[in-house]
């Protein structure tokens, strides 16, 4: 019994990381209806960027987080304003094609630059340190990721509900032309949205790099988890995405407990179940 509770707890903590993966995807889709097929590859790119920064500057991986996040924000803003803004319109295909192109470019550039060797970011003792709370063992690092994910979800929700920029995001998402009539620079606002989305991806990438190994080609796997978390949680709310990630994490952890080969597919199974039973997701916000 205790083992199952432990498994569930590990699943929740893993879900925190998946929620972080999914948050950027949820934001970009929510504001701009833009599905970024390169989302997972950007996470991996961030991990490699962190590797570069840590190697060059000799800093602690956590210190690389703000550097990578800021660089990712700038990249996201730049890509949105130079390329992605032009793909937005009534047709859903152009953004998919362009971001698919990004995916291929990123994977191959990373392959050329870093080879296919498995890499990871080293945290030292903290990677495996844990604390026992009653019968449950909680790793410090997974707990840190979970708390960061929670804080980021709360911050995003507050940004969207209570700030001028958040209202601008939502207005531009509802009716782009009417938003411009209000004085909202739609291209700039979309740039900011993508910048924030990629900054979140940057943070997620550093955490991923510490937690698991990474190679240039693992991006699509994380796109899939992010996508599943968003769909399970339902569109339109960041807390929905957060809980979607947690549910996915729990599903994978329980599946893994039954048999290590069943971990990932248990997550897919739950995702399909939600799609069949409640396609709008578990906590959707109606538009």
């Amino acid at each position, binding site marked *: 019994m205790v083992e199952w509770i432990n498994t569930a707890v590990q699943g929740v903590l893993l879900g925190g990381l998946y929620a972080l993966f999914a948050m950027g995807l949820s934001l970009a889709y929510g504001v701009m209806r833009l599905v970024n097929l390169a989302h997972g590859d950007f996470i991996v790119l961030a991990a490699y960027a962190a590797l570069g920064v840590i190697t060059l500057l000799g800093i602690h991986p956590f210190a690389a987080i703000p550097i990578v996040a800021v660089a990712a924000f700038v990249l996201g803003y730049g890509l949105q304003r130079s390329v992605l803004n032009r793909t937005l319109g009534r047709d859903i295909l152009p953004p998919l094609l362009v971001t698919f192109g990004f995916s291929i470019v990123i994977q191959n550039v990373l392959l050329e630059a870093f080879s296919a060797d498995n890499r990871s970011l080293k945290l030292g003792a903290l990677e495996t340190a844990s604390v026992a709370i009653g019968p449950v063992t909680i790793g410090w690092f997974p707990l840190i990721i979970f708390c960061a994910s929670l804080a980021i979800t709360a911050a995003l929700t507050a940004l969207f509900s209570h700030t*001028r920029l958040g*209202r*601008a995001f*939502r*207005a531009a*998402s*509802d*009716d782009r*032309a*009417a*938003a*411009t*009539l*209000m*004085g*909202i*620079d*739609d291209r700039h606002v979309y740039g900011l949205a993508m910048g924030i989305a990629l900054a979140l991806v940057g943070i997620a990438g550093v955490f991923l790099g510490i937690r698991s190994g990474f190679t240039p080609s693992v991006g699509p796997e994380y796109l899939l988890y992010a996508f599943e978390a968003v769909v399970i949680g339902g569109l*339109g709310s960041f807390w929905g995405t957060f809980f979607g990630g947690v549910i996915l994490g729990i599903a994978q952890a329980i599946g893994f407990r039954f048999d290590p080969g069943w971990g990932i597919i248990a997550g897919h199974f739950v995702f399909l179940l939600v799609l069949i039973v409640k396609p709008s997701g578990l906590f959707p*916000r109606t*538009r």
Partner: protein
Amino acid sequence: MTALLSTHRLSSFYGDFQALFGVDFEVHEGETVAIIGSNGAGKSTLLRTIAGLLRVPRDAVQFKREAIGGAEPYAIAAKGIALVPEGRRLFTSLSVEENLLVGAHTRRTGAWNLDRVYDLFPRLKERRANAATALSGGEQQMTAIGRALMSNPALLMCDEMSLGLAPLVIIDIYRCLREVLKEGMAAIIVEQDINTAVAAASRVYCLQHGRVSLSGRAGELTRERIAAAYFGL
């Protein structure tokens, strides 16, 4: 006296389709001008062009002595032109209050703020937390007007506010508008209903097939002249 807003030989296109043919039009400070005309005459096109939603040469539209033709809509809004769009176009995922707050995005200063809008439209204050979609037609129109006022514009443009509203509600809306305009804001009112438009304005333009077919002071235009210009007889 130079006009607050003027258009010069303004021609507007939707792709290859020409909707306006060399329209010369002006509004002076503090003035209310009405634009009337039948469906497809180009009334909304004129407002949308002024607001920046359609590309035209720079000098085709002048506002406060500045050429604003083809400028981005958000830049034009920042300069002090606010549009109450045809069909309201409220933001559906925002509440009434949030719609009003978005109207203040330009951060222009002036007499209008949230409290004053609620004083003008008490019904909106009752419904401030409701989704904008959960309002009656009249309340939605009030929200759209309030949203435009929140940007403290120098020129308020109202596009077919009476569409879909009951006659009593229309009277109420225009009474509120009269109160607002007493404070000196210039306004352009587009209406299909000739009586409402002529009663609200000091000068009237009539558009027909994208051209100005008649213009003059509201009091001086006879019913016959208006009807002839409206229908192109």
